[in-house]
């Protein structure tokens, strides 16, 4: 199925979870805020939040540079 990550389309397996996507991108789930179709996904629910075709994810990395 096709999903959008930060505006760019990407193919992923059906039934992929938010956690699966983060792992496929090599992103530590503790270092990002994930927004799915404009709603924030609780970090505890990354593994149980299954995506569907056309979902839009925004991934925002925690940064602290000054």
């Amino acid at each position, binding site marked *: 199925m096709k999903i959008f990550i930060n505006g760019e389309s990407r193919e992923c397996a059906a039934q992929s979870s938010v956690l699966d996507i983060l792992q496929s991108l090599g992103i*530590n789930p503790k270092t990002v805020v994930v927004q799915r179709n404009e709603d*924030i996904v609780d970090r505890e629910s990354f593994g149980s939040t299954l995506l569907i075709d056309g979902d839009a994810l925004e991934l925002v*990395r925690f*940064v602290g*540079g*000054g």
Partner: protein
Amino acid sequence: MQALTDEERAVYEWQMWTRDFGEAGQQALKNTTALVSRVGGLGGPVCLELAAAGIGRLIIAHGGNLKPSDLNRQILMSHEHLGTPRIEQAKARLLALNPRLEVSAVASNISKENVDRLVGEAGIVFDCAPLFEERFLLNRACVTQRKPMIDCAMFSMEGQVTTIVPGETPCLQCIYPEIPPGWKREFPVFGAVSCAAACYGVMEGIKHLSGMGASLKGQMLYFDMRNMTSYRLPLQRRPDCPICSQLWKVSPP
């Protein structure tokens, strides 16, 4: 509240033409004390723009001496002062731009020992520190004392800004429950990226103080200058946040 002098009216005339700002907005800036944590790549331009805009008093806190690797972004500094305290250079530069400004220079970083007192002296706080430990200390003190905090951060080509108003918005630890693993003191930085985040933050502060425009309360502005994208991410408070959840029990959203 102190009124503007004729000299101040002459200096700030052009910005007072801004819709919904005017003399009342300028007077609000004049009568405000802002605390800025650090005067480096982010805090430096925050201080410079606040000084230019006519903030009344700045409390600036930054320890250490100027190093060569600071000079790609720390625009309050100058090459000839390598090896000397950053905070003294920052103060001199700010007063050269705006001699009406009152500057309280603290020659150390925000710490457990000084955070409560410094936040207590300020009407608004700008968090521009490069370490989460320091950001969290400021956040906790701002929540406890109910002070607004403009949080500015950057990494490489990305920047983030949000306005935290305790009791009204999520706090920094609602957004970042813990120190992100792997965050290091040294990170890729272009001065123009940190300066952009700083300028967004300063306008958030000016808007908060003057009541002009729509602020980033409860939202994070995120921008990526690698491809020039930006968007606003809605932020959610954490009901179990150890820092600010007590406030919500008193005054629910």
